[in-house]
């Protein structure tokens, strides 16, 4: 009983601890919403997040996160891992036309202790198509032509060395609205490439479809380089323990059994021996079997070497 009580007590204590911990976390989270700029653990992936900007007339599929207003107004440079807010423009072109602004990416540039800089917290606000642009886009749909976009290759001093361009057949975008998917490959402050397309499949032959509503449903993904796996380092272990599988040499085939190895010699040998035995028995019969007569021959011998026995 006492035991159970103590256990229940301890469970209570645990519960309290958990609750307090949760409270702490929520407090921290609440605190964090104020200090969000400092604490940015995961960088990169921000799917389908949009800021509300006054120039947008259509409704967004996902509500903007509450912290964004705070983040847009603040700039901090005092921290060692300081970050600053930057913006860069998305341009688009219809077929072979010139590029024109189509939206704004905003992100925070995080400076690390070791001097490296990375982009985090990417947000995107898309300008709505104007009537003229809608017409142009409809033309593209008709001609199955390219809808092209571009981003500066450097976010600090755009356009950097050059713009990175991506394009998609316009017919891949329309669903109910216009679905688009950006994958931005970055390396520090540089944008290597942007991959633009529909978020799903776009099977060939592409069907012509005018979108129901001219609003963009954007998904953006920020991608950095992965670390390559290292060559396994365990040679010492293996060598130390047994060394039987080490070195990666071709493992010698397992020792075959005696029969597997020498059957080809054994069979003829057996035959020869059998032959010799029957021969010998024949000899014996020739000598001894004559008076005994045929009826006395054992059946087994008769079956085993009938031809030899019958032979006269």
């Amino acid at each position, binding site marked *: 009983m006492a035991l159970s009580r103590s256990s229940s007590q301890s469970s209570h204590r645990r519960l309290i601890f958990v609750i307090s911990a949760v409270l702490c976390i929520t407090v921290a989270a609440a605190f964090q919403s104020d200090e969000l700029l400092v604490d940015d653990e995961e960088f990169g992936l921000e799917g389908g997040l949009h800021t509300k900007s006054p120039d947008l007339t259509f409704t967004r599929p996902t509500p903007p996160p509450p912290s964004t207003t705070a983040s847009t107004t603040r700039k901090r440079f005092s921290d060692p891992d300081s970050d600053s807010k930057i913006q860069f423009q998305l341009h688009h072109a219809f077929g*072979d036309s010139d590029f024109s602004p189509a939206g704004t990416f905003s992100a925070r540039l995080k400076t690390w202790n070791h001097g490296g800089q990375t982009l985090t917290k990417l947000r995107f606000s898309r300008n709505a198509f104007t009537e003229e642009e809608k017409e142009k886009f409809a033309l593209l749909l008709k001609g199955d032509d*390219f809808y*092209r976009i571009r981003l500066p*290759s*450097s976010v600090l001093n755009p356009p*950097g*060395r*050059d713009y*990175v*361009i*991506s*394009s*998609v*057949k316009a017919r891949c975008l329309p669903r109910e609205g216009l679905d688009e*998917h950006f*994958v931005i*490959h970055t*390396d*520090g402050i*540089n*944008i*290597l*490439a942007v*991959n633009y*397309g*529909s*978020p*799903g*499949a*776009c*099977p*060939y032959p*592409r069907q012509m479809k005018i979108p129901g509503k001219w609003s963009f449903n954007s998904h953006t993904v920020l*991608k950095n*380089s*992965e*670390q*390559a*796996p*290292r*060559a*396994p*380092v*365990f*040679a010492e272990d293996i060598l130390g323990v047994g060394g039987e*599988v*080490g*070195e*990666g*040499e*071709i493992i010698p085939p397992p020792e075959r059994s005696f029969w597997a190895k020498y059957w*080809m010699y054994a*069979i*003829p040998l057996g*035959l*020869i021996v059998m*032959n010799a035995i029957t021969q010998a028995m024949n000899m014996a019969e020739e000598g001894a079997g004559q008076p005994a007569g045929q009826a006395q021959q054992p059946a087994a011998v008769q079956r085993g070497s009938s*031809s030899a026995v*019958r*032979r006269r």
Partner: protein
Amino acid sequence: MGVASMAIRGFLLLLLFLSAAHLSFSLYEDQVGLMDWHQQYIGKVKEAVFHTPKSGRRRVVVSTEENVIASLDLRHGGIIWRRVLGSNDVISGIDIALGKYVITLSSDGSILRAWNLPDGQMVWESFLEGSGSSKSLLSVPTSLKIDKENLILVFGKGSLHAISSIDGDVLWEKDFAVESVEVQQIVQPIGGDVAYVVGFVGSSHFDVYQINVRNGELLKHNSAPFSGGFSGEALLVSSEILLTLDSTRSKLVLVSFQDGEINYQQTPISDIFGDSLGTPVLLPSKLPGFFSVKLNGAVIFIRVTGEGKLEVLDKVNNVAAISGAISISDGQQAFGLVQHGDGKIHLTVKPTHDSSADLLKESIDMDNQRGVVHKVFVNNYIRTDRSNGFRALIVMEDDSLLLLQQGAVVWSREDGLASIIDVVTSELPVEKVGVSVAKVEQNLFDWLKGHILKLKGTLMLASAADVAAIQEMRLKSFEKSKLTRDHNGFRKLLIVLTRAGKLFALHTGYGQVVWSLLLPTLRKSETCKYPTGLNIYQWQVPHHHAMDENPSVLIVGRCGQSSEAPGVLSIVDAYTGKEINSMAAVHSIVQVIPLPFTDSTEQRLHLLIDANQRGHLYPRTSEAVDIFQREFTNIYWYSVEADNGIIKGHALKGNCNQEAVDSYCFESKDIWSIVFPSDSEKIIATVTRKLSEVVHTQAKVIADSEVMYKYISKNLLFVATVAPKGSGEIGTASPEESWLTVYLIDTVTGRILHRMTHHGSQGPVHAVFSENWVVYHYFNLRAHRYEMSVIEIYDQSRADNKDVLKLVLGKHNLTSPISSYSRPEVVTKSQSYYFTYSVKAIDVTLTAKGITSKQLLIGTINDQVLALDKRFLDPRRSLNPTQEEKEEGIIPLTDALPIIPQSYVTHNLKVEGLRGIVTVPAKLESTTLAFTYGVDLFFTQLAPSRTYDSLTDDFSYALLLITIVALIAAIFVTWVWSEKKELKEKWR
């Protein structure tokens, strides 16, 4: 009964032999040369030194453009010995010292080596220090001795060195780098203790340094200005007179520097030649007392008399080459001269003292596929009648080497094959009905005899002579060198393009040259000064008309080195070697894209991209345009600007809007671009899949009966970039500032499917892309070792097609068309392994249907080819594979890739200067043909999973026949005999 048991025993023995024949997997000693051949070359000869002692082997030592030093037998042209130096160790001088050492100067005059003349062993090697860069000059005086040591004078890297020819010790050196003198010659007058170093300072001063050869002490230095300026060329006429041209090339300037005193003597060219137009060119042949000038296509020999007067000796037209002077008997000297005329070459040997007389005049018929003579080297010998005879070694336009003697070609070497640029293969003609092959090549008796011999060999009854006969028969079987297509597809033509612009068709049987063609479009001409061959492509591969149409190949080249230079195209029949068509194209050629479409005559459509990113369609027929227009919107290509670090994707836009309407010209537009940050990435390697590769299955069944779908796309590009700091030699960058990033890019949309960084690694990167995997080789700076990594890419969008019910009901997406515009769902698996060697080339085996497992062919640093099973580079290798995984063939994980000595494809041979490996599938699924080229050529057949679909070459059909006959006979005998027996029984 004895008969029966004998028969059974015999049968069993036969069975045994048959099974033993099946067990032979690896290559045995006597199988060398059965399916492979190896040819040794040396490359285009730069310099030749004859060594013709009165007795013993007469030889010529040559240095070549491929950085080979070789000693050739003068009797038959065979290689006595050969040393291949590295590709950056360019030989600049060669000579023979002490009559037993071959001295070579290489690497811009910084390495001097001595090789033993009889066997080519290196005797000594000296590294010469120097601070500057300059011409490198080698001078091996015959009679310069200091303390019984013969001296070699070397000028290189701005310093003059005196080196002992016995052990290569540097006795003294004198640095000229600070003097800013451009040294032209080192002169060592015979008998004196002084040497002169002469050269120009700037373009208006001439300097002479007199140096004591005993200790390198500078005795005298004189400098004299010259008002006219020098053209830069200089020619030594005698040991005290140098000849040069002034900067306007209108005056010949004789510079005499007797005892270090400089005197100029100018002679206007018009005084000598009259008023002729054209600029004179001094020909760099060392002729004593006179020199030769090329003017308006003719060569003029001019003698320098004692007082510095110039006197025209002779004027010869159509001169192709002039040799240096050689000394013949009683102190006289002679030189050789080669002229061209009416399909022949004319060799003339003249004495230097009297150029009007001819010591020798010969005309030799010459194969017109060899082009013009580029170089000639003359050597003399004493004829049986005690008169002087001459032999000449000539280097032709196609880089071949010939020895002429007594008006005939004694031997020739096709050394152009040492510099192969590109290779394609062609099928041989189909055997025509009506021509009995047996009648032409072998009669039945021979066939039977051969098989009886083989049988004897198999039953171990053959004598030594028989064994030799069998071996010879196997090596020289008629089957191998037939000029018709074979059932297994082993016989093919390898069509190779060499740097000299010559095409060779090599038979895969023994590598014999079937035809050769010196391409007219790739020859030097007025319109095309520096033609270079680029690539060969399959132009027409007839399948439907294989009986009556010949395949042809397209050769692409350009006039000049820059990519803006105008291109040249020619189309050559692959069977006859005749040029069918040629175009001195008006546009430049940056990229050639063979399109997957053919017209009604089975000519492949090619899109040639010029420097302005315009596409030009070939063949230029309306039919081709029609086919092209149908696929117009589905044509994409990419371009890599390695210097800029930009990769761009292009699509077609419409016809060119030029002044003239050209319906075969198309504008392009950029549809995607990838810009690598210039401060952190530099493109060093790009690899794609081979267009001809066949993939057998998309699905891969893994251990737990799961299916993985390979992401197979023809449009994948592998790109490797390194940090700019780490792009130099290994060791110049620290691991922290060096990294290697690899990408898999879809070339239609520019989508980066995979991106991965190897920290602390650097190039050079060699990679091969096949099916859904890439294997690449690089250097790991942290581990101080080379590594090989593999990336395999799998398609996840098809991964849920495992449900049988779905498959039955047709609710799968396996048959849906794949579009690059769909968002790919891919997963990649990768793993790195250490690999001991550095790599020169890497390729993968290709088979006809892609069923046979793959092997990587790795050209190692020691010029051999290693076959490594792809299974070793499986990213799914784990430390302790489960039983199922073992059954699947997964090898336990190790950190290094094994190098098994038996798996060298080249067995004990070396393919010197290995540059490339080409694999071609045979018709037989198990077999692939591998051709390796460098300075040497090597060809072999490979069976990565053994020859599971055919009997071995040495399978004895006679034995099989005899076995069957014997068995039938035995059956009859025993049958008759048992009948008799039974009858007897019944009568009993």
